[in-house]
């Protein structure tokens, strides 16, 4: 089965080609079913691969397909690497991808670009699979760019709306900044190690001394790439804007899969990062800063999808914090559980938006509990899971990251717990604002309220179950588990674990840490309950009178405005200067001047053509004499 791994990306590619070419000819239902079915086939193959990998003794398989680039000493084979890390990513991508495809059949039912939507989704799945399967940085980079492209296409899916189209451009451009860092890192890796294959780089790196300059530079540049794709400071502002895309896109691309590509890439290159403690510090600090910044923005947002978007940024920050403190397994565990509950929350939000006739403002919602019971229950599961309340999945993964953080640095841990409290607060705030109390929308909206069709509730239920039980994949020893996930992933991280060692906290400390974070989350949830469910508080209108802090948070710390002032405007001025002065003045002047000079010279020279034959003959003789003299004296 492992040798058939090329089938996994092939199915979505076939789906993309068929649906893309036949988008006007295929009946609507067929396009949706075909798109979902191809991803389901990939999922089936992925399960087979996973089972075989788990039972087999050999944990890393490289499946070469063909030699792609062979020039000089650069050899880039087109080959796939199947190991515990990529096989789990395969399951996440194809499994959640399949559920979201099914959901889209219901959600996008009324859209005119139905078939186009499915062809893009299939293309995205193809590139994402390429990203995680590639056995070298080049194949990874193809997938990396491909998912960026699909993200652009899907954010701007309703491109007739100008602001949606510019959100798509923003996402693409900010990703490009990160991609440049990634690309330079790849070049550096090639010059340092002479190869781009993971299987040849990492053993070489493992033999290197820690803290070398070149490794620090490579890892910092890789991290720049990760900040772009995974929406970290300073390149995170594209992700909230990316909510312009259809909600299934937000669930698939901007919550479950693409934004975790940066974490996957760092986890894949873990040995390089372990050997560069400076980079790890940077990663951890950026991670916790992003987590807190995004969390404080999320607590005042009124758009249901924006809350979830900032929550995603914040959770991604936690994952980077985990990577930064060396908890590679914990970070990946959080990728996994986050994929479950955040996809669930987004799809739930989509279900709410669907029922509300495309209203996204939570101030117009409320009291939806009765009308959308399945959506409410599943979103409740997701909210509890993300808040880190046991025994739901988010608790285990977040706790593992926080425990490692505590061992690493106490201050980071305190900040992490505060962030977790914020998380619980804004998630329960969203839940109560949406589902509790009485309906605040228009009468017409109330009339249309309805629970979503089966194709939308089925993925919700599956994801809710996964969000509840997903944490049991990695129950830590202290709670009587064996941490299956850590054991399964250990071959990938063994070189790093050898150096960094494993968690060395005694059990009472671990219990205490868990108790503190759970208590924090419960208190935050209770505050949200009192404020939004009991006292029926509704956020102010956009222009309402806010305190300074609330105003800062509501306006996203004016970060977009700051970026606009310090980067976009000077850049525009500079381009204006280059356009008007350098291009129009210098370059155009040079080109036009050359033309004019030729014309003028011609005007002068043609006067020599006087028509006087005697003069012509004289010139001829003089020239011949001149040539003779030249030949006589010079040669």
């Amino acid at each position, binding site marked *: 089965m492992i040798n058939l791994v090329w089938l996994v990306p092939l199915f979505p590619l076939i789906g993309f080609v068929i649906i893309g070419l036949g988008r006007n000819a295929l009946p609507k239902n067929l396009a949706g079913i075909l798109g979902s079915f191809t991803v389901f086939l990939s999922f089936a193959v992925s399960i087979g691969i996973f089972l075989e990998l788990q039972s087999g003794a050999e944990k890393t398989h490289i499946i070469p397909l063909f030699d792609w680039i062979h020039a000089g000493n650069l050899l880039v084979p087109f080959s796939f690497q199947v190991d515990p890390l990529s096989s789990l990513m395969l399951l996440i991508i194809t499994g959640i991808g399949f559920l979201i495809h099914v959901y889209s059949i219901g959600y996008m039912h009324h859209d005119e670009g139905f078939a186009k939507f499915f062809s893009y989704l299939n293309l995205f799945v193809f590139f994402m699979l390429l990203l995680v399967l590639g056995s070298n940085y080049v194949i990874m980079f193809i997938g990396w760019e491909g998912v960026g492209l699909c993200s652009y296409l899907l954010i701007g899916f309703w491109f007739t709306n100008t602001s949606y189209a510019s959100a798509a451009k923003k996402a693409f451009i900010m990703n490009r900044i990160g991609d440049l860092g990634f690309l330079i890192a790849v070049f550096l890796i090639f010059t340092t190690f002479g190869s781009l294959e993971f299987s040849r780089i990492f053993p070489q790196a493992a033999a290197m001394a820690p803290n070398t300059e070149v490794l620090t530079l490579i890892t910092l540049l890789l991290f720049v790439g990760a900040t772009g794709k995974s929406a970290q400071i300073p390149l995170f502002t594209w992700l909230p804007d990316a909510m312009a895309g259809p909600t299934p896109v937000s669930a698939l691309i901007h919550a479950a899969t693409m934004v975790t590509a940066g974490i996957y890439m760092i986890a894949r290159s873990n040995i390089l990062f372990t050997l560069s403690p400076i980079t790890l510090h940077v990663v951890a600090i950026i991670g916790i800063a992003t987590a807190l910044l995004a969390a404080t923005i999320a607590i005042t947002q009124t758009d249901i999808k924006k809350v979830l978007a900032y929550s995603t940024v914040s959770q991604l920050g936690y994952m980077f914090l985990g990577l930064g403190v060396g908890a590679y397994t914990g970070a990946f565990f959080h990728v996994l559980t986050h994929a479950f509950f955040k996809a669930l929350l987004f799809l739930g939000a989509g279900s709410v938006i669907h029922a509300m006739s495309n209203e996204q403002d939570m101030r117009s919602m409320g009291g939806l509990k009765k009308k959308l019971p399945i959506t409410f229950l599943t979103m409740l599961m997701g909210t509890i899971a993300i808040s880190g309340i046991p025994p739901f999945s988010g608790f285990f993964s977040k706790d593992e990251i926080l425990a490692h953080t505590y061992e690493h640095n106490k201050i980071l841990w305190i900040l992490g717990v505060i962030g977790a409290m914020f998380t619980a607060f804004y998630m329960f705030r969203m839940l109560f604002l949406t589902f509790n109390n009485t309906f605040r929308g228009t009468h017409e909206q109330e009339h249309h309220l309805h629970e979503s069709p089966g194709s939308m509730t089925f993925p919700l239920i599956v994801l809710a179950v996964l969000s509840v039980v997903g944490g049991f994949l990695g129950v830590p020893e202290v709670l009587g588990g064996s941490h299956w996930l850590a054991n399964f992933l250990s071959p990938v991280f063994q070189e790093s674990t050898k150096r960094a060692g494993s968690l060395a906290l005694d059990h009472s400390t671990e219990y205490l840490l868990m108790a503190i974070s759970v208590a924090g989350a419960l208190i935050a949830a209770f505050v949200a309950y009192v404020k939004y469910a009991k006292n029926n508080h509704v956020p102010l209108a956009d222009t309402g009178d806010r305190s300074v802090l609330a105003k800062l948070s509501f306006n996203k710390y004016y970060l977009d405005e700051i970026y606009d002032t310090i980067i976009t405007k000077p850049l525009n001025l500079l381009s204006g200067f280059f356009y008007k002065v350098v291009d129009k003045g210098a370059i155009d002047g040079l080109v036009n001047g050359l033309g004019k000079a030729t014309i003028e010279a011609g005007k002068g020279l*043609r*006067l020599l*053509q*006087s*028509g*006087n*034959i*005697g003069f012509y*003959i*004289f010139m001829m*003789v003089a020239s011949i004499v001149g040539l003779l003299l030249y030949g006589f004296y010079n040669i």
Partner: protein
Amino acid sequence: MESITNSIQGVPLNHYILFSSILFSIGVIGVLIRRNAIVIFMSVELMLNSVNLLLTAFSVYHGDPDGQVFVFFVMALAAAEVAVGLAIIVMIYRNTNSTDINVLNRLKW
């Protein structure tokens, strides 16, 4: 044959060169300063013949007949050129009632 060779070699080579140069220069100056098309034509013939003379002289001094063969070519070509050239001059005269080349100054910018 022998006697012709001898009589040609009776004059030193330098004299031939000098004479041909003078003849050629006269031809050039004639072309440059005269305005009558027929006289210019004659001057061109003068130049051609000075070269012919020099070719013959060199050929004899080198004992290589190629030079003399070349002279025949030049003469044949000069004859053909004269045939065409005189025809042109006749046509010019018919059109302008003159053989003065300064009248032919309309082909210009």
